[in-house]
């Protein structure tokens, strides 16, 4: 009998960190499989997390595949499943199935300059690919991160960002002026326009709210980026994660299986229904 894709593997939460508080809280979870870890994934892939009794939701894996000890997820409290995840403690059991989706074609990007553009919780899928590229920094050109959130309190990975700043160019932004903020003030697309990354030998990865993605793409196009140089991730409501339940489709694509990573060249051809 083939493996039953609907049955999750059990995992233990080994670390919880509060990234963002307030009305739209974000926590980072690290989970370790109870049994042997044969979960191998690539950057940009997703996993379906179970809170037994509440249900399942799909999340981008934000840790790098180079890390084998645990899987990391950044979770914004949004509904039933995420609220119960936010109530969980270290040691609690969740279910994980996956990995699902296509992931970023990182292999193809070797030798190129990588520009990561994120907004809010959208840093999660970027985090995996950014850290993987950082781990093999010599294989890539310049790495740049442009990241913003509503306020400085809404930025995730603040401590880690300080670390990363030492290694690569990081341009942060917040939407509205704050007293001790020294970096860019404005929306992420404006920051992109302001920093003018060069399209030469570059690939960009943009993740964030749909409206931000839309304007970042416009900003990149204005800077001379080709559609093939622009990558993004799409999210839609998912239940099965394996291309059967029928709700996450964009055209004939199932985002859970054929996505969530798309180049703008590919995504442009699909119906705008996400």
């Amino acid at each position, binding site marked *: 009998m083939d493996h039953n894709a609907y049955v999750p593997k059990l995992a233990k939460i080994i670390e919880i960190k509060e990234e963002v508080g307030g009305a739209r809280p974000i926590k980072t979870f690290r989970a370790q499989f109870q049994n042997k870890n044969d979960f191998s994934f690539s950057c940009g892939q997703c996993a379906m997390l179970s809170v037994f009794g509440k*249900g399942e939701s799909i999340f981008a894996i934000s840790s790098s595949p180079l890390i084998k000890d645990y899987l990391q997820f950044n979770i914004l409290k949004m509904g039933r499943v995420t609220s119960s995840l936010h109530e969980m403690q270290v040691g609690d059991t969740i279910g994980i199935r996956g990995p699902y989706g296509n992931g970023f074609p990182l292999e193809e990007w070797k030798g190129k300059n990588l520009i990561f553009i994120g907004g809010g919780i959208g840093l999660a899928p970027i985090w995996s690919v950014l850290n993987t590229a950082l781990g093999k920094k010599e294989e890539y050109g310049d790495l740049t991160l442009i990241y913003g959130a509503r306020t400085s309190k809404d930025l995730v990975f603040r401590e880690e960002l300080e670390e990363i700043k030492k290694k690569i160019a990081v341009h942060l932004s917040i939407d509205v002026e704050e007293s001790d903020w020294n970096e860019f003030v404005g929306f992420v697309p404006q920051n992109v326009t302001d920093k003018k990354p060069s399209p030469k030998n570059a690939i960009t990865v943009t993740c964030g709210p749909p409206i931000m993605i839309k304007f970042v793409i416009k900003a990149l196009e204005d800077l001379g980026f080709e559609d093939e140089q622009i990558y993004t991730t799409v999210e839609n409501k998912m239940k099965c994660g394996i*291309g059967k339940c*029928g*709700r996450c489709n964009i055209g004939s694509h199932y985002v859970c299986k054929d996505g969530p990573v798309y180049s703008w060249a590919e995504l442009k051809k699909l119906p705008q229904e*996400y």
Partner: protein
Amino acid sequence: MEKILTKKSFPLWVKELVSYKIYAPQKNGDLWNFETIKKPESINLDFPNTVLPPKNIIFPQREVLLEFESSNENKLQVKETLPDDDPTIIFGVRPCDAKALTLTDKVFSGDFKDPYYWKRRNSTVLIGLACNIPPSPNCFCLSVGGSPHSKEGLDILMTDLGDKYFVESLSEKGSTLINLAKPLFQQPKAADKKAVEKTQAEAEKKITRQIKDIKKIPSILKNMFDSPLWDEESLSCLRCGICTYLCPTCHCFDINDEVASSSPVKGKRVRTWDTCQFPDFTMHSSGHNPRPDRASRLRQRIFHKFQYFVERYQNYLCTGCGRCISKCPVGIDIIEVLDKVRDYGS
């Protein structure tokens, strides 16, 4: 293998099959539906279309995927709950409904084989009944690559020849069933074969509804995503689930946890049918809905059947059973909609 079985012998054959779980169309009030059969003589194959296709035998509306239970020490256990694979026979499967299973087969195969679906599917023998008279005035199987005597997906096809059935075995599973009662079956005569041919040719003529130039539809649709047609055609849509729940090819589902006790947690993870016609189908937890209105949902139904599925699996996701037309409470007619699509293209 081709055989003749007299109608008198038919219940005797069914009697030989008692070790199987047997489904056949049964009448309840004015409606026919597939139900399990206790007595061989209670099978009546003189029935119009069943309201529900037999898909719910293979892909039930509710399927328990797994059970979970946490002990007092907060130790959680998860148990996979695969269905029984009791050998099952479905009598009286209409060719369109059998063909539909060959389409859902594609969905539930692939990289992630669906064990629940396949366990039932593999243990079920489909015995079809050719439609000598279209079971519904809205039948249009001929337009979507089927026919009233299509063998696709069937293990046996029976054709009613008045006082006897012409029985064709189409698979090993089918032959096994015939061999269980060999003496009851006779060799067909040349006249029988002629009669079958005649009946089938006549049956095809009786199908009056059709989608003209269907081959053009997928490519026309491709350029029609933003057409105002979808607003127009969905004006009377009620956003109910009839068209999809009664469809033999629709297969979308939901997964939810049903909880018997929340502390310690105990419950089941359950798969139930779902439909693109319900507004919550695609609604994100944030409230964002990529398909926010009836127009986008009608469009999804049409596109999935005549564009997306064609692109993905090279088949229409429709077998022309006509249920969605006959049962739509406001008379939305998929043939009419496609007629307008075609007009739009020309």
